[in-house]
């Protein structure tokens, strides 16, 4: 994995990682652990919107929570590094920070907007005060008046009339509350914003507004976003790069348009054929047969093979790893974990390599 990351680094012209997740492993349960994330590596570059997609239970949220060490018991990080690079180039491993530094780093360096974030607001305090609270907690020197003024500015930033700062949460609609949470997350000018299904509870109009707002704010403030959702069509709109997860692993990592037009992993292909395209030629809707494997006892080899139309004999025995796809002319920065694209590994395992099917080699 690290060799791959290095080679990617040489190729990519602007390789400016703000968050590097390396070999992150997570277990649930201490006694008879379920390995929910197995050596995941992922890099988030400065100013980039990275989309994380996959079905329910594939580990998207676990990845985000583990990277911020917010995973509740019985979650346990069993290995890996999460390197955060500050604006001045200082690097720190989130997983090695002590409690005090971790607390200080939260919100300031990395802010999270939770799933169903609108319920994260305390119903008995005015929203302006709640935002100001976050500011004064991290910057005790700020006066209450300044903090409230900044809170009003932040509300303006996310398109809420600053007069509403004196409202209580129940006086706002769901979408507005969600935007208040985004304003709150941006209060300390974080460099990484993790959004865990921030739009799931909202209607499509509100979804669109919020997604546009995030894109707009990203352009103005220059933070990076990890956007977690199972809505792939939404991701294609907002993300620069998309990582597709399956059964606790990343199976494809590529530029958003590449994932959309030229999927290389059969699972990504299946996901894309699970919803109708909004524009362009009509596609046949296929969906993905079967259901995700039981994480507590994963089959050997490729976890996707039972649901895969292109599985061959090697898939039952060899675990695929992320490699550059075996399609000539592909973006060298993209990677895919499928044995169809990895003839060397198949050959090394003593099997006959199978060619890349046409469907996974579109141009």
């Amino acid at each position, binding site marked *: 994995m690290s060799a791959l990351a290095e080679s990617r680094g040489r190729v990519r012209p602007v390789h400016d990682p703000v968050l590097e997740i390396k070999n992150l492993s997570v277990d649930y349960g*201490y006694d008879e652990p379920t390995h929910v994330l197995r050596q995941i590596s992922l890099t988030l570059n400065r100013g980039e919107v990275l989309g994380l997609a996959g079905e329910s239970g594939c580990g998207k949220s676990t990845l985000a929570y583990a990277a911020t060490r*917010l995973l509740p018991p019985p979650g346990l990080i069993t290995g890996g590094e999460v390197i955060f690079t500050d604006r001045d180039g200082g690097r720190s491993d989130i997983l090695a920070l002590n409690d005090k530094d971790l607390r200080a780093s939260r919100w300031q360096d990395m802010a999270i907007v939770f799933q169903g974030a609108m319920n994260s607001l305390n119903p008995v305090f005015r929203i302006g005060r709640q935002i100001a609270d976050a500011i004064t907690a991290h910057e005790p020197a700020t006066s209450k008046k300044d903090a409230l003024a900044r809170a009003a500015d932040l509300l303006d930033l996310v398109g809420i009339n600053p007069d509403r700062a004196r409202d209580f949460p129940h006086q706002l609609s769901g979408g507005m509350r969600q935007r208040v949470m985004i304003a709150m997350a941006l209060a300390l000018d974080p460099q990484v914003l993790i959004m865990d299904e921030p739009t799931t509870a909202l209607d499509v109009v509100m979804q669109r507004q919020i997604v546009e707002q995030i894109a707009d704010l990203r352009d103005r403030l220059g933070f990076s976003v990890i956007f977690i959702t199972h809505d792939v069509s939404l991701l294609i709109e907002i993300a620069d790069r998309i990582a597709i997860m399956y059964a606790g692993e990343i199976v494809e990592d590529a530029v958003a348009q590449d994932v959309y037009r030229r999927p290389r992993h059969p699972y990504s292909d299946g996901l894309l054929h699970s919803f109708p395209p909004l524009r362009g030629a009509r596609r046949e809707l296929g969906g993905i047969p079967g259901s995700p494997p039981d994480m507590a006892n994963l089959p050997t080899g490729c976890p996707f093979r039972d649901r895969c139309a292109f599985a061959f004999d090697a898939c039952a025995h060899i675990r695929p790893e992320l490699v550059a796809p075996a399609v000539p002319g592909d973006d060298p920065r993209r990677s895919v974990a499928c044995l169809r694209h990895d003839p060397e590994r198949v050959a090394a395992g003593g099997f006959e390599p199978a060619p890349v099917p046409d469907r996974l080699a579109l141009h």
Partner: protein
Amino acid sequence: MSAELLDLDESIDLGIAPTAPSGKKRRFLFMRNAKALTGLGILGFFVVIAIIGEWIAPYDPDARSKDLLQPPSWDHLMGTTHTGQDVFSQVVLGTRSVLLIAFVAGFAATLLGIVVGITAGYIGGVGDESLSALSNVFLVIPQLPLIIIITGSLPSAGGLSVAFVIAITGWAWGARVLRAQTLSLRRRDFVEAARANGEKTWRIVMAEILPNLTAIIAAGFIGTVGFAVLSQITLSFLGLTPTDEWNWGTVLYWAQSQLALQRHAWWWFVFPGACIALLGMALTLINFGIDEFVNPRLRSTGMNARGLRKRGIRPRIGFTPVVHEAKEDRA
């Protein structure tokens, strides 16, 4: 009650099986908690003593002998009283009434608390108001004086009547807690869903709400048993129950009235006192065990605290523990 407790004790063997629990043994996960296990062990010991006391007591507790005020010896394990009675026999034979009264009182008080608390919490309105007022009245009444007055006015204040007096004065706290929790539970979505499904009120209370209160009820029960032990021993110590019915409080009553302290007869009050402390500790440990068991998420945490400590894991919310154990099979 005691039969049920014995069942629990028997299951300990299953619970601490060295291999990981699987299938049916998962039922006994609670038993793997070291605190609960210690508590249940001590309690089980007293239950056994209570049952077989008659056969293992070496002397008649009332019988006088020539060994006056003897310190502990092989003849008299816990020494003798001023009339030569054997303290060991008194303590052993007193165990049964202590445990019986404590558990009957605990059971009755918990039952009363459940009925009043859940009814008040679930029906709301006027019924809630009046039941809450009732439990508030019982909460503000000073318990011990009330117990003393009631026992004093009873024609015979022995055995079960004491248990019921304790139950009547001790149920209000549990009712209060259960009412509060029921109030919160009945608004939850799963209860609303059950109502929308057309479930009967009875079924909603018994099958939807009650299981969520199990931990509180269990903890409350154990707490009430502890309260009952102390109240009953206090009553006996003050001489309000017949002084010829042996329990640990009666032993202490005689020790106090015959100036054991001044005569340096330490064995007379130290042994029954230690029994009270030990039983209290056992109940508290069981309560700790229940506490750690309440939250299903923390279940695996409380169960093997020692193993976790060895691996350097301190499970906390908001600070996920990090261990570097995963084998790096990817370069």
